[in-house]
C-alpha cells in the first residue's frame, strides 16, 4: 500500500534527513515510525503526501508512483494528523472535520451526516460539539477531532505525526485504545510517528525504529523486544521505558533490597549498633519465615535497649506498601511525608524490599535527561 524504494531526502542546507529508506507497509497495517528526535520520522511521513519531495528514490502509494499524482489530489486521498493537531481556530468543530469532504465537493447533507457519524463514533455528542470552537475543547477532545478530521473522507491511508504527544498519560492511554478499537473496525493503512516506545509497542503491527535517517530495526513489537538488533535498539527500548513510567504505574521498578533486614528476635541494642555502623535511620524487621514485622523506630528502640528487650516491640507497622496495589505516586506521597525507606510487601505480608527517595530520584533523572536531550 505504501512503499519506499531507496528513498532519500537531502534538504537544501545539505541535511540528509532520510537516507536510502526501503520500506513496505501492507494494506490495513498499522506501522509505527519511532526513533530519537531528528532521525527523520516527520520527514519520511511528509514525503508520503508530498509535503516534502524526496530527492532520491521513489514512493508508491497504492501501487502508483506519487510523483505521477497531482499533490493536491494525493493529499485529499490521504488522511493527515499533524504533530500539533492544528485545528483551524476560526472554524467550528464540525467545519474542521468537514474540511476534506468540502474540498472534495461532497453534498451538504452527506457532509453533515458524516460529521455527526464521526463525532458519535468518538463519543462526542454531535448536537453539543458540532458548533463548538476548537478553543472550547479539552486537549483530548482536540486530539480526537484531529483524528476525525483525517478520517472524514474515508481515506485508505492515514498519516499521524505524534498525534497524542501533547497529552497527559491517562488521556493518551485512552485515546490509544480508542484508536486501536477504531482501527479494528475500519482497517486503514496507518503510518504513525511517535517518540514513545510504549506507544509503539502497544499500537504497532510493525515497528520501524529509525536512526539518523536509516532503519535500525524493523519488525513486530515482539520481534523487536525479543531480539533487539543492536545496543542502540536495546537502549532505546530500555531508556524509553524508564522515561515513560507514569505516577499511576506499579512500584516494581522502584523496589530495591532493604539496607538492613533484622530478625524480630534480635536484641534492640544490637540492632541499634548495626544501624549506627551503617549510618542508617531505620531497619526492616522480619520473622524467621520472612514475614514483615515492622520498621524500627529508633526512639523506641533506644528505650528498649536500656532494658534489654528484643527489637520486635520497637517497630511501627502502619507505614508500608503492597506491591499489588501501590502506585508510584503512593510511594512518593509516603516519602514526601517522611524521608525514610518504605517497606514493600507482597500479598501474604512478606517483605520484598523497600522503596526510598533515591529510586524516585532515579526516575526523575531518567526523565529529565531524556526531556533535556530532546530538541524539537
Amino acid at each position, binding site marked *: 500500500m505504501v512503499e519506499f524504494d531507496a528513498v532519500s531526502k537531502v534538504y537544501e542546507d545539505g541535511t540528509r534527513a532520510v537516507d536510502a529508506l526501503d520500506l513496505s507497509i501492507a494494506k490495513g497495517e498499522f506501522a509505527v515510525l519511532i526513533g530519537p528526535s531528528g532521525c527523520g520520522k516527520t520527514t519520511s511521513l511528509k514525503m508520503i503526501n508530498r*509535503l516534502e519531495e524526496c530527492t532520491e528514490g521513489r514512493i508508491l502509494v497504492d501501487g502508483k508512483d506519487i510523483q505521477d499524482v497531482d499533490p*493536491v489530489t494525493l493529499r485529499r486521498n490521504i488522511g493527515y494528523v499533524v504533530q500539533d493537531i492544528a485545528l483551524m481556530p476560526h472554524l467550528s468543530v464540525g467545519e474542521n472535520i*468537514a474540511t476534506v469532504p468540502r474540498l472534495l465537493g461532497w453534498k451538504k447533507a452527506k457532509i453533515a451526516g458524516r*460529521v455527526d457519524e464521526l463525532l458519535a463514533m468518538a463519543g462526542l455528542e454531535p448536537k453539543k460539539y458540532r458548533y463548538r470552537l476548537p478553543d472550547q475543547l479539552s486537549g483530548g477532545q482536540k486530539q480526537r477531532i484531529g483524528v476525525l478530521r483525517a478520517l472524514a473522507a474515508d481515506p485508505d491511508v492515514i498519516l499521524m505525526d505524534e498525534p497524542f504527544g501533547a497529552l497527559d498519560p491517562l488521556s493518551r492511554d485512552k485515546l490509544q485504545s480508542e484508536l486501536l478499537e477504531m482501527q479494528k473496525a475500519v482497517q486503514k493503512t496507518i503510518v504513525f510517528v511517535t517518540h514513545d516506545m510504549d506507544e509503539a509497542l502497544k499500537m504497532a503491527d510493525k515497528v520501524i525504529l529509525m536512526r539518523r535517517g536509516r532503519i535500525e530495526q524493523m519488525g513486530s513489537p515482539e520481534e523487536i523486544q525479543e531480539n533487539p538488533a543492536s545496543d542502540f535498539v536495546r537502549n532505546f527500548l530500555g531508556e524509553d521505558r524508564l522515561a515513560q513510567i507514569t505516577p499511576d504505574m506499579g512500584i516494581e521498578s522502584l523496589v530495591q533490597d532493604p539496607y538492613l533486614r533484622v530478625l524480630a528476635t534480635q536484641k534492640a541494642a544490637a540492632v541499634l549498633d548495626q544501624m549506627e555502623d551503617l549510618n542508617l535511620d531505620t531497619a526492616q524487621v522480619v520473622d524467621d519465615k520472612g514475614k514483615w514485622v515492622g520498621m524500627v523506630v529508633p526512639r523506641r528502640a533506644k528505650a528498649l535497649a536500656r532494658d534489654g528487650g528484643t527489637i520486635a516491640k520497637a517497630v511501627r507497622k502502619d507505614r508500608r506498601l503492597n506491591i499489588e496495589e501501590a502506585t508510584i505516586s503512593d510511594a512518593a506521597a509516603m516519602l514526601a511525608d517522611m524521608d525514610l525507606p518504605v517497606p514493600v510487601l507482597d500479598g501474604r505480608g512478606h517483605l520484598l524490599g523497600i522503596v526510598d527517595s533515591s529510586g524516585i530520584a532515579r526516575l526523575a533523572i531518567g526523565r529529565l535527561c531524556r526531556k533535556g536531550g530532546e530538541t524539537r
Partner: protein
Amino acid sequence: MTQRSLWDLFITYVARSYPRILMLTWQHLYISGIALAITLVICIPLGIYLTRNEKLAPYVIGLANVFQTIPSLALLGFLIFVFGIGNDNAIAALVLYAMLPVIQNTYTGLRNVPPSLIQAARGMGMTERQILLKVQLPLARPVLIAGIRVATVWVIGTATLAAAIGGGGLGRLIFSGLASIRNEVILAGAIPATILALLADQCLKMLENYYSPETRAKRLARLGPLEPDKPWDSDQDETVLADETEENEEAASESPSDVDKTKGEDVS
C-alpha cells in the same frame, strides 16, 4: 451686532443651510469612500504579495511610511503638480496617506498565521488559493480590519483638507468659517466630519465582531445547517477580499444617511 450665543448661531446656521451641509457631507463621504476603496483594492493585494516576496516588504512598507509621515497638507500641495487642483488630487493624496496601516496590517496579519496551520491545510489538500482564502485571510481578519479602521478614520479626518486645494467636502465649511471668523460655520463642518469618522469606525468594529469566530459559531448553531456557503471547490470562491471592500462601503454609505436623518429631524 447683538450678542448671541454660539449655540444659537449654530442652530440658526444649520436650520438655514442644512441642504448645503448635507451636500458637503455627501461629498466628503464620496471622497473618503473612493479613496478608501482604492486604498483597499491596492493595498490588500499588495500586502498579500509582500508575504510571498518578503525581501520587498521593508522597502514597500518603508515607502508607505514616508507618505504617511509627510504632513498631509504638504502632500496635497505636492500632488497639485501631478493632478492639478480638485477632488482627484485630494483622493490621490488620501490614498497615499492611508496606505501604510492597510499594507502593514495585511502583511503582519498574514505573517502571524501559524505555519503549522498552513501546513495542515496544505496537507489536507487545499490549493494555495484555498489556503489564502480559507485559512490565512480569515485568520488575519481581525488585524486586517483593525488596519482598515485606522485608515478609515484617518481618511475621513484628512479629507477635510481637500477643501484647501479646491476640492469639496466638509472642509469647505471649516475653511470658510476660519476665513470669516464664524465659529458656527466651523462647527457645522467639524461636527458632521467627526460623527462620520466615529460612525464608520463603529460600523467596522461591528463588522469585525460579526465575523469573529465566536459570533460565527453561535450563528451557525442558530441557523442549523452546517455549511451556509458553497462547497470550497466551486471555482467562484467568493473572495473574502471583495466581500470586505463591499461591506465596508456599505457600512460607510449607511452611516451618512443615518446622520442626515437625525440631523434633519432635529432641525425641523
